[in-house]
C-alpha cells in the first residue's frame, strides 16, 4: 500500500512539475481522522490551546462520524510544505488530494499576497504555544484564557499589508496627524496618471475634485478627528493601551502574527480552491486510470465541485473561472492570474456576463422569513460577490480616535453589523483598551454609537 502510494505520488509530482507547477518540497503525513480534524480545527498542528479550537474540532469530528462531511485535504503554507492524508483514504482519493495540494503549494509559493508570509510558521506557532503555556502557569489559566478570548474577538482587525516596523520607526508619536481624506493622496499622483485633466483649478471656484474634497473636509471635520484612521486595531491597542502587561502584549502579538499568516488564505479562498481544483482535474486526466478508478474519481470530483444555492462553493466557481480564463487567454495567462490577483480583483476582472449566466448565479436576500433571489443581473451579482470578499468578508473597522476613550468607526457600505454581536464584542475591546470604547456604525440608515464601560453597552442614535 505504502509503496503504491509512493509510486503514485512520484508520478503525480513529476506530472505537476512538467505542467509548470512550482512548489516547495512536500512532506506528506498519514494520520487518523482525529488528528486531521485537530489540524483542521487549529489551522496548524502546533497552535496554542483554546476552547474555540476544541469547539471546531468537535464539530468537524461529529460531522465526520455522522458521515456528513469529510476533509479531503489539509495543507500548510510552509517550506517544506506539509500535507496530511487520512489513513483510511483509498488510493484514488490520495491521488486526487496529492494533485490538489501540489497546486495549493504552488499558489502559496507564487501568489504575490503570500510573499511575506512566514514559511516557518509551524515552528513559530509551536514557540508561541510554549510561551502561552508558560503564561498559564505564571498567571493562571483562567486569566490567560479570558485575555485570549478578548484578543481573538478582534483578531481580524489587522492590516496585514502594512510594513509596520518601518512605519513605527518613522512615527514615534502616539497619533498620526490626519492631513488628508481617505484616498486623497491619490490625487497627488494625478499628473502622472491622469495627464492634464484637472491640473489647473479655475479661479472662480473649486473645480477639481481635490478642491471639492478639501472644502468638504473643512466643513465636516470635527476637531476630535485628529488622527489618521488606523485599520490595525490590534496593533493600535498593543502600542497605545496603557493598561497591558508585557505578557498580554505578547499574546496580542501572537494573535496578530497568526492572523497575518492566515490572512492571504482568507483573501484568496475562491482563487486558491479554484486553482487547486483546476489542476487536480488536469493532472488526473493525464494519469493512466483503470475504469473503476475513473468512476471513483468522477464521483469524488463531483462531490467536491457540487454547486450550492445558498452560498458560493469556491471549488466550483473558482474552477469555472480558471477554465474560462484559459479558454479566453490561454494557459500562460493562468499563471499570471494566480500570481497577481486576490479574490476581489479576480472576480472583478474575470467574472464575465457569460459566466454569471452559465453558472446561473444570482444574488439573494431576506424577505419576511424567506431568502429570495433578488437579481440575476450580472453586474449586480458580481458586485454582491465582490462585496462578500472585501476585507476577507469581515466588516472594515478603524480606530479614529483615542482621547483617551477608544473610538472605532465601521466603514458602512450597505451591510449592517450584527447588533447582538456588537454588544458582546465591545466589552472585549474595553478589556484590552482599559478604558471606555465606542463604535460608530449605521442601523437603518441612521448613525448610531455603541458605548461600553466594560459592564454595560449603550446605544445612542446621533
Amino acid at each position, binding site marked *: 500500500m505504502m509503496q503504491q502510494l*509512493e509510486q503514485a*505520488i*512520484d508520478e503525480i*509530482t513529476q506530472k505537476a512539475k512538467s505542467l509548470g507547477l512550482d512548489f516547495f518540497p*512536500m512532506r*506528506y*503525513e*498519514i*494520520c487518523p481522522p*482525529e488528528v*486531521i480534524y*485537530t*489540524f*483542521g*480545527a487549529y489551522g496548524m498542528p502546533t497552535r496554542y*490551546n*483554546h*476552547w*474555540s479550537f*476544541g*469547539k471546531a*474540532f*468537535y464539530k468537524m*469530528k*461529529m460531522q465526520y462520524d455522522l458521515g*456528513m*462531511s469529510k*476533509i479531503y*485535504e489539509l495543507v500548510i503554507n510552509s517550506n517544506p510544505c506539509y500535507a496530511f492524508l487520512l489513513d483510511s483514504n483509498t488510493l484514488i482519493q490520495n491521488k486526487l488530494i496529492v494533485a490538489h495540494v501540489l497546486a495549493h503549494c504552488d499558489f502559496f509559493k507564487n501568489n504575490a499576497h503570500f510573499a511575506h508570509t512566514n514559511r516557518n510558521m509551524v515552528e513559530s506557532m509551536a514557540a508561541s504555544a510554549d510561551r502561552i503555556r508558560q503564561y498559564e502557569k505564571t498567571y493562571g489559566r483562567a486569566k490567560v484564557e479570558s485575555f485570549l478570548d478578548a484578543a*481573538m*474577538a*478582534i483578531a*481580524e482587525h489587522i492590516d496585514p499589508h502594512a510594513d509596520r516596523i518601518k512605519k513605527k520607526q518613522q512615527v514615534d508619536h502616539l497619533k498620526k496627524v490626519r492631513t488628508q481624506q481617505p484616498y486623497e493622496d491619490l490625487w497627488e499622483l494625478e499628473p502622472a496618471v491622469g495627464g492634464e485633466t484637472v491640473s489647473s483649478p479655475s479661479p472662480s471656484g473649486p473645480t477639481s475634485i481635490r478642491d471639492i474634497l478639501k472644502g468638504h473636509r473643512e466643513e465636516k471635520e470635527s476637531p476630535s478627528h485628529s488622527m489618521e484612521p488606523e485599520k490595525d486595531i490590534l496593533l493600535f491597542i498593543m502600542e497605545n493601551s496603557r493598561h497591558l502587561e508585557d505578557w498580554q502584549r505578547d499574546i496580542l502579538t501572537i494573535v496578530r502574527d497568526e492572523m497575518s499568516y492566515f490572512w492571504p488564505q482568507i483573501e484568496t479562498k475562491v482563487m486558491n*480552491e479554484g486553482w487547486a481544483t483546476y489542476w487536480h482535474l488536469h493532472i488526473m486526466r493525464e494519469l493512466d486510470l483503470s475504469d473503476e478508478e475513473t468512476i471513483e474519481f468522477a464521483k469524488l470530483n463531483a*462531490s467536491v465541485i457540487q*454547486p*450550492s*444555492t445558498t*452560498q458560493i462553493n469556491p*471549488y466550483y466557481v473558482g474552477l469555472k473561472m480558471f477554465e474560462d480564463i484559459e479558454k479566453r487567454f490561454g494557459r500562460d495567462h493562468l499563471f499570471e492570474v494566480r500570481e497577481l490577483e486576490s479574490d476581489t480583483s479576480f472576480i472583478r476582472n474575470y467574472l464575465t456576463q457569460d459566466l454569471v449566466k452559465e453558472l*446561473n*448565479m*444570482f444574488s*439573494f*436576500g*431576506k424577505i419576511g422569513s*424567506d*431568502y*429570495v*433571489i*433578488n437579481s*440575476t443581473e450580472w453586474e449586480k451579482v458580481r458586485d454582491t460577490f465582490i*462585496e462578500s470578499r472585501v476585507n476577507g468578508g*469581515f*466588516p472594515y*473597522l478603524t480606530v479614529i480616535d483615542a482621547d483617551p476613550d477608544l473610538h472605532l468607526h465601521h466603514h458602512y457600505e450597505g451591510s449592517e*453589523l*450584527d447588533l447582538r*454581536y*456588537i454588544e458582546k464584542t465591545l466589552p472585549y475591546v474595553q478589556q484590552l483598551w482599559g478604558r471606555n470604547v465606542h463604535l460608530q456604525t449605521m442601523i437603518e440608515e441612521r448613525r448610531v454609537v455603541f458605548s461600553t464601560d466594560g459592564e454595560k453597552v449603550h446605544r445612542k442614535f446621533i
Partner: protein
Amino acid sequence: MSEPLFLISQEDWSLHRKGYEDQTRHREKVKEALRNNLADMVAEEGIFASNGKNIVKIPIRSLDEFRFRYNYKRQNHVGTGNGSAKKGDVVAKDGDPNQQQQGPGKGAGAGDQPGVDYFETEVTLEEVENHLFSRLKLPHLDKKEQAEVVVDSIQFNDIRKKGIMGNLDKKRTILQAIKRNAQEGKKGLGKILEDDLRFKTWSEVKIPHSQAVVLCMMDTSGSMGRFEKDIARTTFFWISRFLRQNYSNVEIVFIAHHTHAKVVSEEHFFTKGEMGGTVCSSAYKLALELIQQKYSPSKYNIYPIHFSDGDNLPSDNDECIEIIQKVMEVSNFFAYGEINQHHRMSTLGDVFKSIDHPKLRSAVIYERKDILQALTTFFTENKEEELKA
C-alpha cells in the same frame, strides 16, 4: 543530490490529545454558561411540550465566538443555480442557511455545506428546575392553617425479625441467608431459616397537607396572538411546576375572557382564540366568585395570575381596581404578566401602576428572555411583610 521533492511518513499519533483537551474545556464553559443563561433556558421553546417528564433533555448550543460581523439577515448573498433559478425564487427559509463559518485555518472541507446547527450538550428539566427554583420564593408564607391541615399516613421505615408474611422484605431476607451461609463457610444461597426472615414495619406519621389553587386568567380575544399565548404558556408552565414542588396538591383553573369570562380547559385556554373586545373585570369577578364558592382561603393558598397584552376597555378600569383589591385580600398574591412585544401603550398596565399593595406583582415581558425576570418578580418574598414580622 538535491533535496527530495517529497517524503511520506506515518507516525504514532496516539498521544495527540489536543483536540479532545480543548473540546473538554469548551464543554466546561458551556456548563458554566448555563448557570449564567438561565433566562435562555427558561425561555426555551417547547420545554413545556415535555409535559413535565423529567427525562426530557434540552439541547444546548455551543458557545458563540463573539466578534464584529455582519447581520446575515440584512445582507445580500450570492448562490448558484442549476440553470433555472430566476428572480423571485425562494432559495431558503429562515433558519436553514446558517451563517457560514468562515475563518482562518478552518481546514478546507471539500464541498463545504452551510454550517449545520449542532448541539454541544444537554440538560435535563430537573437541572433547569434546580437552578430556577433556587431563585424563587413562595410569597406570604405566614399563611393561616396551612401547617394545621394534616393527614394521617404511614411510612415503612424500619426492619424487624418478626412480622406478618405480607410485609416480608425478600431482598433483605435473602441477603441475610447468604451472609449466614458464608459465615458457616458455605458458598451461595443455601436454605433459608426462620432466623433469616426480615420484615418491613411501619410507623404512623402526620404529613402536613397543603393545597394551592392557581387561577390562571388570560385574555383570549383577537389581540392575543401566537407569541403572547406562547409566552403565557411557558410562564404558566414554570409557575405550576414550582407550586407543585411546594404544595402536595395544586389545582389549576383556567379562566378565559374577552368581554365575558368563563372557565375553560387547558387546551382551549392556550389554543382557541375568540373575537371581541376586552373587559378584564369579568375575569377578576369570576375569580372572586370561585374563591368564595370553591376555594376557601382558609383551605387553599390562592395564586391568581393574569396574562394580558395590556389592552383593556378604558371604561372598565375603575371596576378592575376595585375587584383586584378584593381578590388580593384573600390571595397569596396577585400576579399580572403583561406580554407587550411591541412596547405599546397599555391601559391595563396603568391600572396596576395605580395600585400600591404588597401582594401585587406585575411584570412586563417584551421578549422570551424576560420570562425569567417575570418569574422572579412573582415569586419573591415581600420585603415589607418581612419587616413587619
